[in-house]
């Protein structure tokens, strides 16, 4: 009965059964990643349905956000989200480019590890810590030293002067943009560093052979070659900045107001949700906050997906070239 052959076939059958179970478990987990996204979309749509039905397109174009009269328009938070993110990119991209160039071209090998670790640690500092630092350290410095200077010197200028009007509050669009810049810096830097490194050495050496300086090589060879990746990295940073919540909530000022001045307090989509959700009474109010969430989701998804596609294409191009 218990001949070796029977024992072996039983063993093989058990092995095959475990194999099926394991394979299905991995497949189900992989599909769960997709279902999660579907679930997020479904709940956001479900939650925001009443508000979207009540306000239609005026939800996106409306400027008023009034819980008392139950009128909700997302234009102000949308404006704040986009302005703070653009300010962040304006500041972070040149810095990230400089750091990436330093790490790939100038930095001696022994220093490369510590410096890149230091920059990457900026990414692991929790967002709430950026918030508390921004509110208690950065905002007072801006209020007393930087913003008065901006108001005096840039305020009277035609054109850009309109961005620097009003009293120095310390908190507001500019401060939020500044904190966001620090937060997206490590992400943009690490993508730039990676794509710079992917540049074929033969191209660089050819340029050196023609008498190019190191900077010529960076600007005229590396950057054009990795352009898609650099743009991808910047958009990845943009995606981060658009959705960042806690740090912004601390320093944005939470005022539902659109003003051209970057010094004025405002609000962003994520800050509005974080601030108001727990206290939102009434179904329409809650639903309007869900609709804000849906808007943010669509915005960030589009930006991040486009960024990932660009990076993916660059990677495939690099593989082909090799």
């Amino acid at each position, binding site marked *: 009965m218990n001949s070796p052959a029977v024992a072996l076939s039983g063993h093989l059958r058990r092995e095959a059964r475990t*194999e099926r179970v*394991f*394979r299905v478990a*991995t497949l*189900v*987990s*992989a599909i*769960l*990643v*997709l279902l*999660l*996204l579907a679930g*997020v979309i479904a709940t956001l749509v479900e939650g925001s349905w009443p508000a979207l039905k009540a306000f239609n397109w005026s939800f996106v174009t409306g400027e008023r956000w009034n819980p008392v009269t139950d009128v909700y328009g997302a234009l102000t938070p949308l404006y704040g989200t986009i302005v703070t993110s653009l300010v962040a990119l304006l500041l972070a991209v040149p*810095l*990230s*480019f*400089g*750091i990436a*160039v*330093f790490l790939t071209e*100038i930095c001696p090998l022994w220093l490369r590890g510590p*410096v890149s*670790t*230091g*920059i990457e*640690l900026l990414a*692991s*500092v*929790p*967002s*709430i*810590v*950026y*918030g*508390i630092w921004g509110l*208690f350290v950065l905002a007072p410095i801006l209020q007393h030293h930087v913003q008065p200077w901006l108001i005096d010197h840039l305020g009277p200028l035609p054109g850009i002067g309109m961005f620097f009007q009003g009293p120095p509050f310390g908190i507001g669009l500019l401060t939020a943009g500044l904190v966001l810049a*620090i937060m997206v*810096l490590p*992400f943009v830097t690490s993508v730039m560093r990676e794509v710079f490194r992917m540049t074929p050495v033969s191209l660089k050496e050819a340029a050196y052979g023609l008498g190019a*300086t190191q*900077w*010529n090589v960076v*600007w005229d060879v590396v950057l054009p070659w990795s352009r898609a990746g650099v743009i991808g990295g910047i958009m*990845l940073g943009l*995606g981060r900045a658009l*959705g960042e*919540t*806690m740090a912004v909530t*601390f320093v944005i000022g939470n005022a539902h107001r659109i003003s051209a001045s970057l010094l004025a307090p405002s609000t962003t989509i*994520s800050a509005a*949700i*974080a601030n108001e*959700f727990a206290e939102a009474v009434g179904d329409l109010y809650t639903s309007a906050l869900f609709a804000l*969430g849906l808007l943010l*989701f669509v915005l*960030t998804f589009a930006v*991040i*997906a486009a960024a*990932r596609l660009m990076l*993916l294409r660059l990677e495939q191009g690099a593989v082909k070239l090799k």
Partner: protein
Amino acid sequence: MSTLRRRRLMNFMAFSASMVATAIGLALLGAILWTLLARGLGAVSVAVFTQMTPGPGSAGGLLNAIFGSVVMTLLGILIGAPIGLLAGTYLAEYGRGTRLSTVVRFINDVQLSAPSIIVGLFVYMLLVIRMGHFSALAGAVALAVIALPVMVRTTEDMLNLVPRSMRDGSAALGAQPWRTITRIVYPAARNGLLTGVMLAVARISGETAPLLFTALNNQFWSSDLTHPMANLPVVIFQFAMSPYKDWQQLAWVGALLITLFVLVLSIIARSISTLFGQHANPGE
């Protein structure tokens, strides 16, 4: 000759600027750490670890918040890590090169940088509304959702570092794929997988936004998973935004604790993965 001089000058200026940029980046990290130490370290005391969060205007500690954070982070990892491990295994092993894994990898990468507050809304709808109230369980699920893409990504990357020949050798001995994966591939990638778990813990232990309307907060000690539970990030948020000096002080202590924990964990995870990277056989 003047062209050469101009190009050299340009070279010098551009590289000086890039060094300044790097110095600014590192100085920012230094400034943040310095602030945390200067404002938080002085107030670290035994009371912080033995007393509950105080009412407005009185002294106390962070015990219940620390406990809640540990519980929810652990629970989040316990839910998120196994699923992430299996999904990553699918991408690197069974589903290699299939259309499904391309889609899953792409969506996972998108979720990696998706706003965490959206996850809070999702879990609020999924669990908080159904259960009728905020709960630690909902908080843990929200953290698991955030940990998942980190785990999937690192698992796939680390499994791909294990040489194909090892799998072939195992298969040639007659092992079923699952046995090859669990007995050969996982042990070979052990350090890398550990790195993934640590990175996921680092990622979720500082998360605040998804907890705001899932776990909420609790001023008192609670170990009941079906009820609101205090946690460090939300306590920091609430205390820092308050007008009370005692509360603000505790917020700084909490921020210091959480940052040190996350930074140390990130550094350890990085050094493990560098060691692992050096030992991994690049020949595939």
